[in-house]
């Protein structure tokens, strides 16, 4: 029996590692994004501070720390102070349930490469994601300014709408893994990644998380041209930096969740023999998924607000319900018929639904474009 205090020490160290990894991840994600965006726009990007501009995030941090903190005269001071913290917390809290790897033997004992393996981890993610709206709403309200308020309104409506599709698109994963524990979900993907079984589910989940973290093309709440940065318009200095940090940490977290749910998490060749490779694979998968997010931002224009809403409710929600139904049918037929071919019914049928969705969107856009009344 290992003494109690070493267990506490282990948890403490792991929590510190996760928080610092997210902090450094945030700093260098901004650098990664600026460099990648610059390349896509045939610019060079930040390259002055340090070799290849690697010290740029640190320079930015120092600048933000020494900036003057302003707060509007008519702001609700306490909430105004609280909301950046409320925005940042959920992304760190979700980090606790993500499995970064399996178990390694260090210092003569088994160390799990995750902080907590709770058996309702999927629900935990949904719960914390739903709470993360508060920071943004309260920031908009407490600033007592109309642009901030409009940004917060848009953001609330958007996040509530896309949360529905997000929650439902988690169900196929639970059905396929037959568990709500993130670790068991990863282990269930040893034979096949879930993205192969349920490509449409992965796509819906990814689109919904893009809307949840307010990334382009769903960055309505910020919309620089219309709302002058939306809900955080009145914030400056470190408070603004906290909002910024929250957005980028959420990007990292949702990429990690997507990797866990659909892309095999920490699994990869040689991982079974050398579990320490797990975090490396996880890191690589997160980097690739983050690159796709940046790529989307560089390529796609912002979607108009009414279209954003109708896309969420009329396309994503029915499609996610269809994925749940088809996954359940596939698994049921597999159980009844004991024929592995039925598992392939799931991807084929979900791709069919995807095709119907694409045709539907295309027709609707054509109608909107050519039928002037």
């Amino acid at each position, binding site marked *: 029996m290992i003494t109690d205090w070493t267990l506490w020490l282990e948890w403490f160290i792991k929590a510190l590692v996760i928080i610092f990894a997210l902090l450094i991840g945030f700093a260098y994600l901004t650098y990664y994004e600026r460099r990648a965006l610059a390349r896509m726009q045939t610019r060079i990007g930040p390259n002055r501070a340090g070799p290849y501009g690697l010290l740029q995030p640190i320079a930015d941090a120092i600048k933000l720390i020494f900036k003057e903190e302003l707060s509007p005269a008519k702001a609700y001071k306490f909430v105004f102070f609280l909301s950046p913290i409320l925005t940042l917390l959920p992304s760190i809290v979700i980090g606790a349930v993500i499995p970064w790897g399996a178990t390694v033997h260090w210092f003569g004992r088994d160390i799990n490469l995750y902080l907590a393996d709770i058996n309702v981890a999927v629900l935990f993610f949904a719960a914390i994601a*739903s709470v993360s709206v508060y920071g943004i709403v309260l920031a908009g309200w407490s600033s007592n300014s109309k642009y901030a308020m409009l940004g917060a309104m848009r953001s609330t409506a958007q996040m509530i709408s896309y949360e529905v599709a997000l929650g439902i698109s988690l169900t196929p994963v639970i059905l396929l893994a037959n568990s709500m524990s993130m670790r068991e979900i990863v282990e269930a993907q040893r034979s096949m990644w879930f993205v192969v079984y349920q490509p449409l589910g992965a796509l819906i989940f990814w689109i919904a998380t893009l809307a949840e973290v307010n990334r382009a093309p769903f960055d309505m709440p910020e919309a620089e041209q219309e709302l002058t940065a939306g809900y955080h318009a009145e914030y400056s200095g470190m408070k603004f930096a906290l909002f910024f940090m929250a957005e980028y940490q959420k990007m990292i977290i949702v990429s990690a969740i997507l990797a866990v749910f659909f892309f095999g998490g920490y699994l990869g060749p040689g991982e079974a023999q050398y579990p320490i490779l797990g975090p490396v694979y996880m890191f690589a998968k997160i980097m690739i998924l983050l690159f796709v997010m940046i790529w989307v931002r560089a390529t796609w224009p912002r979607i108009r607000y009414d279209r954003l809403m109708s896309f969420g409710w009329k396309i994503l929600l029915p499609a996610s319900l269809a994925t749940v139904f088809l996954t359940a049918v596939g698994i049921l037929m597999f159980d009844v018929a004991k024929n592995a071919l039925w598992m392939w019914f799931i991807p084929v049928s979900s791709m069919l639904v995807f095709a119907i969705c694409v045709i539907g969107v295309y027709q609707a856009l054509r109608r909107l474009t050519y039928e002037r009344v």
Partner: protein
Amino acid sequence: MTLDLALFLVLACIAVASALGMLLSRNTVYAALYLVLNFITVAIFYLLLGAPFIAMAQITVYTGAIMVLFLFVIMLLGAENLPAPNALPWQKPLAIALAAALFAEAAYLLIVKARSLGNVLPPAEAINATENLRQLGVALFQNYLLPFEIVSILLLVAMIGAITLTKKEKGARNG
């Protein structure tokens, strides 16, 4: 056990304080925030009782969805500040009488009838959490499938009703 008790006492204080804050706050946004805090403490109570599923559902449904809608409506209507209390003359004595009756009933049940309330299972050790989840699924979708479906249809009807009530009829605009 003592750690659980200490946790419970602290949480109970927070729960009662946030409930009082919700009632006494003159600003509706603050009242809503107190209610959010209260819901979160209730969720932690469920965790203490070994019911993680209900705890997470509590946070997702009440804290995450319903209270956000509340806040949304409060902000949309700009109804942050309540007007000065304009109580009806008979309201206060009636409220005091009803509160006293409720308190007396609760005290009677707790003190006098406590022995006859039946044995309560110690929840944390009753079943481990994974089994808990499985049993919940079996109970909802096998043992009580019909009531579950009826409740679902009831909620759907309520939702459609709300949409129908708020939607203007096509002819009504011109008339």
